[in-house]
Each structure stands twice: as structure tokens, then as C-alpha cells.
């Protein structure tokens, strides 16, 4: 029996009931990966034998009924797994072996999930297309000439291509939700502080949050249950207790108020996405949801605010990659040396120039500039104030409405290479997603249609801090009514005649 079409929720039920074994489950996904990943490129490192071995051990143990026992999970390569390479898709960390487990990985081990491997991403999570990986491209399973989105491109595609039922990504400005939208899967960015960041390699610490990619809201809730909780190792970890996100999933939406921000509907929004939004509104209304038009004028400042804050923090977070204590070290051959420069400085500059790709360098440059003396007030400080206004505006909006609905992205997945020449264009694609990171609120992207070209369309719900339950309930209700999330891409395995 092939298990790849089953939801993680059903897999848990089947495994608990003894209908099939963890090894059978692992085997289905391992074979799917072996069949399709050459073409898709989701995984940077995948160890099928290890996954099968782990499942077999589990089948023979008394832990086989634990929380996520036997459920295969893929991990974005920005999350540390002990004694394994954590590269962040960067030359800088190509052979870096993490000496420790991220808190979320510890939790998954305790839940007895089966780790399939590490997924591809934009280098250090900087990018929206996974084109910035130093190692390989990742293709959109719906159309290989299109990007999968990013930075969690590998994490989204492996779920879309049914190579993993669940995966962990990270979302700093939309890096879970945007690839989820591009690949037709469900992607949740929880409230800032909901899932421990300990072991998540930092891009922009005040924006980063580990997120979940799955087929539907129910699977998302299942995995979320096993990831949340206060972590004393993360000072920014929320002390608000986690909930059983599965428990209230079927609650009625009767009386729920959803806001539609006027500012989301501008000339930049693709008409097909706009149409999906209208359709979705009708679906929600059938479930008793009341829609309210609201105004969020700070929306237009989101991208500028985000790129300043994120780049400034990144310039500090990435200073540790200097060739001294771990990771790549580069020096110049003696004949090319400028003798006036000291050797240490030369090592720093060579290592960082050869170890980082162009997008990472660009953001480090931008952040360094915006923090440097004379520019701090005009850029960094100004951005922090704008960020306050954005958060305040959302807090006010949530006095009026329970959730906010909008597009996840202005367009469906674009073609590979289409935007790589124009970074600002690519940044502008993050307009709908960055707000949630700036405000620290949770947001979820869910499949809501297809473009005429056959590319998935995603919509986003945002809620106030710690409203994950409500977001998941609304998404679940929508998914009970629609089947967009159940569509599968037609894939041609590498080597198969097409």
C-alpha cells in the first residue's frame, strides 16, 4: 500500500490502530523522494536508509504509539540537527556539523517523528524563490520552469510533491507562506515566540519564526501541537501556554468577523488572485462569516520597513561567519596578496566574499550601511518607528475584526530567472506577508484556486497574537468546503519518457 496520499492525521490514526507499520509509511515516502526529487530538488540531504532504519526500530519498540511516531518529517536546512550538516544552503556552512539539536528537533525526537532529511532554501533564508541556494535549484512541482517560492522552497515542494506529509520551514518575511501559496500547500507562520527559535539559524532575530508546511489545516494543527511551548533557552519564547490545536478545529465560524483591507486591492494584485479572493469570501460567508471592509494604510510601508529591519539584524547575525571558528575559511594565494593588508583582515574579507552569495552580500551591505553612523536614525530607527505604527494599526484592526483575509502574494509563481536580475521587484512580492512578521502575529496561507496557467493560488488569513487556533479553525472550515488543497501536481519523474 502506498501511503503518500494519506494525511499525516490519518497516518497517525492508522499507525496507532496498527493498520500498517512505520516502516511501510517511511518506505512510501522514501520511494517517492527517490522517484521525484532529482527533478524537483527539494532535499539537500536525504537519508532513506536512516529513515527506514528509524521506522523499523520504532515498529519494534513500545514508543510506536507516541505523538508523531512514524510520521516522516522534512526539516529546512536552517534548523540545527545534532551531528548533521546544517548548511543554510550556503557555501559558508557547507560542511558545518551542528553540535546540538534545535529545541524543535528535540521535541520531534521526543514525539518519535521520523526525520527524512534537510530541505533546500534560499541562502540563509534570504530570498523568495529558492534561486539563491548555493547548491541546487528547486523546481515548482506544478511547473518546473517556475520557481517554488522561497525561502522555504524545499520545504513547500516536498509536501506538494508528496515526498513528505509534513515539513518545517522558517518565515522571516513570508518564507513559509509564500512558497506554500506558490506550491499549493498550507503554510503557517505562528505568533513570534510561539515555537522556540533555539537552533534556528538566525536571519533576522526579531522577525524569524519556525513555521509548518502541510496539506491542510488539520495536519498543520497536528504538527503545531508537537512544536509549541515555552523554551527557557530562547529569551523571546512566549510563556503563553500552547493549546491542543486539533481540539477546536471543527468549531463553527458562525459570527466570526473577517476584515478585508482596502489597501490589499491595488493595481499590483493579479486579477486571478483577486477573483479567488471573491470566491473564498463567498465560501466563508456560507459558513456564517461576516466580512467587514477595513483600512490598513501602513501596508504600503511594510516592504521598506521590513527590508531595513531584516537587513540590519542580518548584518549582525551573519558577522559570525568569518572563517575563524567554524565554517568556510578562505585566504588568498601568496602571489595575489596585497602586502599592506593584514592577514587576518584578508582572511575575513576573502572568506566572506567567497562564502556568501550575491543576495546575502547585498543584504549585509544594506544592513551595515543602514546602521552605520550618520544613517542609523534615517533608516534603522525610522524603520523601528514605522514598525511600531504597523503593529499598532493591526492591534486596532483586531479590535474590530477577528481575522484579516487577503492574498498571500500579488501573483502566482513566476518563471525561474524572471526576477533575479531585479532585487527590488522580488522584494515587492513580499508586500502581503511581511506585515505579520513585523507585527509578530500569526498568519496562514492556504490553497484557494489555480491560475489559467495551472499554477496554485494561495490566500492568507492573519490573526492577533496567539490566535493560531482561530486561524486553523477558519482554514479547516474553508478546506471542508473546497478541494484546492487536495489537488496534486502532475509530475514527470526524471528519466521517465514524457
Amino acid at each position, binding site marked *: 500500500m502506498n501511503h503518500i496520499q494519506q494525511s499525516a492525521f490519518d497516518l497517525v490514526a492508522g499507525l496507532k490502530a496498527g493498520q500498517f507499520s512505520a516502516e511501510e509509511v517511511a518506505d512510501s515516502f522514501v520511494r517517492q523522494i527517490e522517484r521525484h526529487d532529482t527533478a524537483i530538488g527539494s532535499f539537500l540531504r536525504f537519508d532513506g536508509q536512516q529513515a527506514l532504519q528509524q521506522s523499523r526500530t520504532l515498529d519494534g519498540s513500545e514508543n510506536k504509539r507516541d505523538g508523531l511516531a512514524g510520521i516522516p518529517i522534512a526539516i529546512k536546512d536552517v534548523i540545527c540537527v545534532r551531528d548533521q550538516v546544517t548548511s543554510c544552503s550556503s557555501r559558508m556552512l557547507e560542511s558545518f556539523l551542528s553540535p546540538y539539536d534545535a529545541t524543535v528537533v528535540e521535541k520531534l525526537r521526543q514525539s518519535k517523528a521520523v526525520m527524512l532529511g534537510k530541505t533546500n532554501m534560499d541562502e540563509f533564508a534570504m530570498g523568495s524563490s529558492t534561486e539563491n541556494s548555493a547548491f541546487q535549484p528547486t523546481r515548482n512541482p506544478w511547473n518546473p520552469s517556475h520557481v517554488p517560492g522561497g525561502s522555504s522552497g524545499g520545504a513547500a515542494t516536498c509536501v506538494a510533491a508528496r515526498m513528505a506529509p509534513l515539513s518545517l520551514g522558517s518565515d522571516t518575511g513570508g518564507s513559509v507562506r509564500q512558497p506554500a501559496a506558490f506550491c499549493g500547500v498550507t503554510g503557517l507562520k505562528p505568533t513570534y515566540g510561539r515555537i522556540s527559535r533555539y537552533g534556528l539559524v538566525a536571519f533576522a532575530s526579531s522577525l524569524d519564526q519556525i513555521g509548518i508546511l502541510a496539506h491542510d489545516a488539520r495536519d498543520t494543527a497536528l504538527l503545531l501541537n508537537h512544536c509549541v511551548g515555552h523554551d527557557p533557552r530562547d529569551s*523571546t519564547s512566549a510563556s503563553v501556554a500552547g493549546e491542543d490545536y486539533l481540539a477546536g478545529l471543527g468549531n463553527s465560524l458562525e459570527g466570526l468577523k473577517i476584515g478585508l483591507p482596502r489597501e490589499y486591492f491595488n493595481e499590483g494584485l493579479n486579477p486571478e488572485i483577486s477573483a479567488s479572493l471573491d470566491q473564498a469570501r463567498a465560501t466563508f460567508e456560507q459558513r456564517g462569516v461576516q466580512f467587514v471592509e477595513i483600512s490598513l494604510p501602513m501596508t504600503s510601508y511594510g516592504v521598506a520597513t521590513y527590508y531595513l529591519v531584516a537587513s540590519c539584524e542580518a548584518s549582525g547575525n551573519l558577522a559570525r561567519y568569518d572563517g575563524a571558528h567554524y565554517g568556510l575559511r578562505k585566504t588568498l594565494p601568496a602571489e595575489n596578496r596585497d602586502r599592506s593588508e593584514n592577514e587576518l583582515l584578508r582572511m575575513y574579507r576573502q572568506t566572506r566574499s567567497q562564502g556568501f552569495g550575491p543576495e546575502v552580500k547585498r543584504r549585509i551591505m544594506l544592513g551595515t550601511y543602514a546602521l552605520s*553612523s550618520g544613517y542609523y536614525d534615517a533608516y534603522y530607527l525610522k524603520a523601528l518607528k514605522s514598525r511600531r505604527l504597523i503593529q499598532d494599526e493591526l492591534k486596532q484592526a483586531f479590535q474590530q475584526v477577528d481575522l484579516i483575509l487577503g492574498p498571500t502574494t500579488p501573483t502566482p509563481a513566476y518563471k525561474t530567472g524572471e526576477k533575479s536580475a531585479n532585487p527590488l521587484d522580488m522584494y515587492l512580492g513580499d508586500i502581503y506577508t511581511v506585515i505579520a512578521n513585523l507585527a509578530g502575529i500569526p498568519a496562514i496561507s492556504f490553497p484557494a484556486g489555480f491560475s489559467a496557467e495551472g499554477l496554485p493560488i494561495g490566500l492568507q488569513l492573519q490573526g492577533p497574537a496567539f490566535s493560531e487556533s482561530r486561524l486553523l479553525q477558519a482554514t479547516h472550515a474553508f478546506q471542508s468546503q473546497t478541494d484546492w488543497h487536495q489537488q496534486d501536481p502532475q509530475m514527470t519523474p526524471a528519466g521517465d519518457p514524457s
Partner: protein
Amino acid sequence: MKKDTYQMIVGLEVHVQLQTESKLFCGCRTTFGSSPNTQTCPICTGMPGTLPVLNRKALELSIKTGLAMNCEISRFSKWDRKNYFYPDLPKGYQISQFDLPICGPGWIAISDPKERFASKNIRLIRAHLEEDAGKSVHDEVAGSADTRIDLNRTGTPLLEIVSEPDIRSPLEARAYLTELKLMLEYLGVSDCNMQEGSLRVDANVNLHIEDEDSTVATPIVEIKNLNSFRAVERALEFESDRQWQQWQREGITLEQGAKTTRGWNDAEQKTTIQREKEDSADYRYFPDPDLVPVTISEEQVNTIRSSMNELPAALRNRLCKKHGLSDYDAEVIVNQGREFAEYFQSVADLSGSGKLAANWMQQGVLGYLKEKELAISSFPVSATRLGTLVRKIQDGELDNSRGKDVFEKLLQTDLEVEAIMKELGIEAVDDSALEAICQDLLAANPQVVEAYRGGKPQAIGPLIGQAKKKNPNANPGKVREILIGLIDG
């Protein structure tokens, strides 16, 4: 121009390692001298994905120190990143405090009982909590091309105490540092071991020069690597002299010249210019997003305040008032440290004479400790035994010289004072026996009686000596009293 036409202006930055079990942001130990890189973990080596969590004790020790230095304690404090690249700084930034340090403005009073400078308050700008860097070892002798990096010290909590430029001489600088160090030791917040780098001093120094009708300032020089108080004094002397020479040669003022950094070379007793970084320091401070702010309540401050030991200045005052000590004596005793001062107080209480106790502490005890290079904790005579001895001297049961004999025995044996006195044959002589001796002496020395009556009271001196020869336990004061009584009678 004469030398006395300029004034040295000095501000000091002192980095103090706080005495915690674990580092500021991780659980690694802070023990000095461990094998290289054995007190590190993913957090303090700046591994990707790791996060800092603030040590509560370090925060409390900072508040305690701030209170002792009369600082305003911030109700809201936060952490910032100071960005620079150096191999002993594995994250590429130091977690420090920029605009909201734990301790705001304060002051430390300094004075000199010898009155070489007038008592004054050295104002403090601030004191902030930050993490220490690791150590770079460059072994030139071995000729190795590489610098070796040990990260054991990385992340040790440091309190950086910054003074206003209120210091005007090397002597004041030493007094300030002495008082600060003493205060830290009394509080128990740091061991202040300069050899081990628990207390490190940087000095900012320039000159204010009287030039015709106006005062001009020379460019500020920061002197690093001052690893003893002596070095601070010598470096300030050297540097003021050097700046004076340079001013006379070049005439560059504060406004015209940049701040420079110089290192103190202890072997050559001079400061030398340190190579500047390739880029002028631009640390790009910004709030550390990995650490949340700290709020400090009035209640918390009061709890810490009430747990504080008595500070040196208050103790000196108390010793002067309660035991009638001079400022000088109080300073000598208090400056020996808390244990020494406690020992003194026991002796003073037992003996009933603070002054006498102070003399014995300085001559007897301190003399011995210095000679043997011991701390008061290893002094062989308990405060009770010494107190008993001083009491007997105070009560006239012993004179000073017999007291010294007993003291010697106290050092060498475990015997009690009474037992030693017995062994040495010291016992109280009753008055009738003394009177008999005195009568005999006066009868044998009529010329002394004559001289005394003729207005030379000092003439009876030799008789006191003779009385002691006849009976070594004779108390000289008592003998004098009896002799005079007999002559006058």
C-alpha cells in the same frame, strides 16, 4: 613655559569580572586558568542558531555595585550589540549596553589622610553589564605564524564602570581605583584579581594647558593594557609628560587632533601608539533582538540594598566614631579588607580600647602578615587571644614590652594569654611589695630625691628601670606613681 601650567585630566574605564558560577548568557563555568577551550559551549562560541539568556545573578551583582557607587538604578534596561570583527569575539559582536545601562550617574568619594590631595567625589557616568571576550595568544618566541584563540573567558560577565574626567593626578587615580576595588571586595561582587584580569583599567587622559589668556586641551589618548595600579600611575605620569612635550612641539589641540589609542608597555615603562583598525571604529550599536529588556522594581532594589555589606567609607566612619580612631588608622585598617577590619573590631571590643587595638593591628598583626606574606585568614592568633592580650595591657596588667613577649608566644603556641603570662612568670605585683621596693630605691638614691625636688621630675626615670630589674612584673606607671607619692608625701 613651566610644567605647572598644565593640568592632567583623567577619566577611567574599569572592567570588572563579576563573581558568578556561570557565564553571562550560558551555563559554562567562569573558572580562571582552565585548559583552553574547555569552558565553552555552542552558545558562547557563537554557533549558528544559539541564543543568549541573561544570568540573574549577574544582573543583581550589577545593581548591588551600582547602589554602592551611589548610581541611579535604571527601572528599564536593555542589551545592545556592539559590532566588530576580532577572533576572540566569535559572534562578530559583543553583547553590551548602549543607551540604557543598568547603572546611571553616581559617584565614589576619595580622600587622603596624608592630605596630598583634597577629599572629593569622582563622578561616574554609568556602569553597564556586558560579556567578556576570549583570549588571543601570540607566541612570538615559538615563531608560530598563527594566533591561538582560547574562548574560555568569552561570555564572562563584566561590569564596565566609566568615570567622568574628574581625576587630576596619578595619586587621585590610584585612590579612586583603590577605593573602587575595596568596595567591590567588601560587596563580594568580584575577586578583583588584576593578575588574572578580573579587574582591568583603561585610562583616557589629556591636558588642559594655560596658554596666555585661555585654556586649551590636548587630544585625548586612551591608554590600554594597564594591569596594575602602579602601571596606571606610571602611565599617567609618562603620558602627561609626553603630551606636554608633544604640545610644545606641535601645538595640536583637542579640536584639531583625533583621539588615539596607546598601549602601556610595562617592561619599558612607556606608552606606545597602537595600530588603528583599518576602518575608524563604527560599532553600529543596535538593540539585541535575542534578548528582551529587563525591568528593575523599587522592591527589587530595596531587597538588594538590604543585603549589602557595610561599605568601606561607612565602616571607616564608624570605626572613628565608635573606637576613636584617627582617619589614618581607620583607613589603614579598613583598606586591608573586610576580614581584617572584622578582626580588628573583635579585638577592639574585647580590649576596650580601639586605639590600642589599632596600634597592635598595625604593628603586631600587619607587620607579621607582611613579613610572612599571609592574609588575615591565615593569621595564627585568634581575635579572642589578641583581644585578651590588649585588654591586659589596657588594664595595666602588662606593659608594652611584656606585651610583646606575650605576643611572640601567641604566634608560636596555641596557649592562652594567661598561660603564657604564667610561663613567662608575669604576675601582678601587689602594691605593698612595690612600695617596699620604691622605699629601698629612694633610700639608696638621695640625689634623685634632691634633683626631683629641685625641679627635675625626669630624674626618677632611672629608678623605674631599677625597679623593673628587681621585679620584672613591676608596672612602670605604677612605680612612677608610688615614687612620686613617697617623695611628695
